């Protein structure tokens, strides 16, 4: 196997661990070692793992907030436009913009838009749907949804080097190490 040929077809190198604690420690050391392009794979969310990986973001909450705001404005604006501008209708002598009556629908629109923001935002930032992903080429990876904990250092990391990265992962004492084909 020619070395260069392999490198060009590699997505990364993956190490398998059997406990969340081992994975958190491995993620911390990978970060300290200077790797930035790596990800962990776990059957359930593990608290403290993203901190150990040094990942921090609040894109989803901001998206939800902005969507909620748009929803509320849309809901209120819709009622004002239809009841006061497009077809002003005198109902029992009330103001055309009888705002207390518009609150329930404003609220419902806010929740509806914010919920879509949360759902679609989560999928979009995660790059889903993803019909194909290289990590699934590793046969053991089916257990990422059952009981195993994986860490994959990706080839696009500037520090990635097939030999040295493998040796480093070896020092983390994993159950197994596999090369991930792209």
């Amino acid at each position: 196997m020619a070395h260069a040929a392999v490198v060009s077809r590699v997505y990364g190198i993956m190490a398998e661990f059997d406990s969340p604690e081992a994975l958190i420690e491995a993620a911390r050391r990978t970060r300290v070692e200077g790797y930035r392009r790596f990800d962990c794979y776990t059957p359930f969310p593990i608290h403290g793992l993203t901190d150990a990986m040094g990942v921090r973001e609040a894109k989803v909450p901001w998206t939800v907030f902005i969507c909620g705001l748009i929803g509320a404005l849309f809901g209120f604006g819709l009622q004002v436009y239809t009841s006061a501008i497009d077809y002003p209708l005198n109902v029992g002598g009330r103001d055309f913009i009888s705002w207390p009556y518009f609150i329930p629908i404003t609220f419902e629109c806010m929740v509806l838009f914010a919920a879509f923001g949360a759902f679609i935002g989560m999928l979009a930032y995660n790059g889903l749907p993803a019909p194909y992903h290289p990590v699934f080429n590793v046969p053991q990876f089916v257990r990422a949804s059952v009981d195993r904990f994986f860490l994959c250092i990706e080839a696009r990391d500037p520090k990635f080097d097939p030999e040295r990265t493998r040796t480093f992962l070896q020092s983390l004492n994993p159950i197994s190490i596999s090369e991930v084909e792209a």
Partner: protein
Amino acid sequence: MQEAIRARVVQEPPLFEGEQTYERITAQIGDIPFEKHPIGWTVMFGLGFVGTTLLIFALVVLVAIGTGIWGINQPVAWGFAIINFVWWIGIGHAGTLISAILLLMRQAWRMSINRFAEAMTIFAVMCAGLFPLFHTGRPWVAYWLFPLPNWLAMWPQFRSPLEWDVFAVSTYFTVSVLFWYMGLIPDLAAVRDRAKSHLAKVISGILSWGWRNSAIHWMRYESAYLLLAGLSTPLVLSVHSVVSLDFAISIVPGWHVTIFPPYFVAGAIYSGFAMVLTLVIPFRILYPKLREYITMHHIDMMAKVMLATGLIVFYGYMMEAFFGFYSAAIFEKYLMTNRMFGPYWPVYWSLIFCNGLVPQSLWFPKVRHNLWLLFIISLIVNVGMWLERFVIVVTSLHRDFTPSAWGMYGPTFWDWATYIGTLGFFVMMMFLFARFVPMLAMAELKDLWYRLYGHGGEHNGHPKTEAPAPTRTGGGA
């Protein structure tokens, strides 16, 4: 926080029956869609299917002939359609309470019943939506309820609580589906990884959107999940409040009461928990392995919530009676007298029996731990809550201000057929759900097990597989 949960829960009765491993949790729940289903499943699905057929038949006849086939007329124009609408919506509320409010309150016992209860919510809201839709008499123009630009230059009346209902219920349904489906994505990915047949792999693969359990994905997922819970909490309170405003904003005696919104919400949660128990107890018999995750502790907690909300509801009944007599308004006073001693007196006193007396037995731990008794009590509560809506809708309308406009209301065969039909549809959908979808939230259960008992070294795992293979290359090759 992890320590706090552990400390609190370990002293309580167990949330899991028997020793679990991540592998065991995944296999027990994730394999149900691939296993041969029990005979009881076929029987119940069959019954549900027959009911659904009845529903379709009843609706076809309704559309062909008109709402005249129902018992509704002046003065009681609402009848079964609105009774059943409110009843079904209320049942749905327990699902959202369990999935959202108990999540925010960090109640660990919600984990094993949330998926189930959310499915119940969705199907209950589907049943609920049918009633006002067909009660309009012309369901094919139901889109008039939405603010769509049209050549009549006509807009919905946004100052009406009935229009608020359209927005509240459709938002509630949409958000419930999103919440439920988002919780399912990681579990469908686990099913995909277990599936043996190509077809099952493809279907679960598509439905799980290529989820790969990435830690960064989990972070965004958890954040979105928590926010959805935070959004659903005020939403669920708003939905039944808006439903209650359908009544309370009018000036009909017995409806024009300020206590309605909180009293309706409590009643909704009360009836919803009764329905969860009505479903969970037979499902534990049909699928014995569920007993490892839905333990007697869960059942006990649900019974306690039922008792607590039942007391609030009963307080509501007492306040209604008090308002009626204290108001010194002749129509309000007559309404209460008529409710208790008028032509519908058996309904009112059955309601007090079902919702006021029977739940008091839940004070006794012996009753809460007797599944047969609890099942019967939950059925009685379901009936009681239905009677409550009957009392509210019918007794207020049938004798209001002018005796010359008084009348009586009674359901017809088609009223019953539609109602029983939705019950069948609900049962059918629940059993289809049990057949094809992981019934419990596997990832959340694994997370809970980990937080309660820790990874626990060997007890959780499998003997370490044959050592690291340092020279191994090319994963899939």
